[in-house]
């Protein structure tokens, strides 16, 4: 099979399976587990960008994604502190 077509279908698979895992995966009551599952559809979107040759979109998406982790982690910790 061609590499471009297989990358496209792999991206769709990651998007669907990761979304199902976020909604009804094991122990998603914990917010950090749910946030770590959210990383899977992110990588699915990256693979779809890669299959359509959108280089600039892929580069900015990767750079922003490793910075948005900081905001989410800060929010989860602040929520846990306020509920104590």
């Amino acid at each position: 099979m061609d590499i471009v077509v297989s990358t496209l279908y792999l991206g769709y698979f990651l998007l669907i399976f990761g979304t199902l895992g976020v909604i009804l995966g094991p122990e998603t009551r914990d917010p950090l587990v749910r946030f770590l599952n959210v990383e899977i559809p992110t990588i699915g979107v990256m693979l779809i960008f890669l299959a359509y040759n959108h280089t600039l979109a892929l580069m900015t998406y990767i750079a922003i994604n490793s910075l948005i982790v900081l905001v989410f982690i800060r929010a989860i910790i602040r929520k846990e502190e306020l509920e104590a």
Partner: protein
Amino acid sequence: MKVEVDGGTVEILPLVSIFCIVMGCIGVILNTDYLDKIIMLEFLTGGLIGLIVSFYYLDVAILTSIMEPVSTVILLLGSLKYLYLKRSKKRYSSKLPILVK
């Protein structure tokens, strides 16, 4: 570099990368401990970098390789602080009924 498998040509680096991505995807969702999930996420990102390199996008691959340890270090520090916070809250709440008595 190319392996002849009954007529078509299959290359090794995309095969290994696709294998890493599928296995890492299943592993991240099925494990429930934080550190196991982060190790599996590392495994998944290695497959992603291999697949980007096999499309000859070397600048994107170098950017991903630089940005990935930053994300991993932030996740590890956050999970450690979250674990410590949850543990101290559980100890405090287990001590609370004794204070009520």
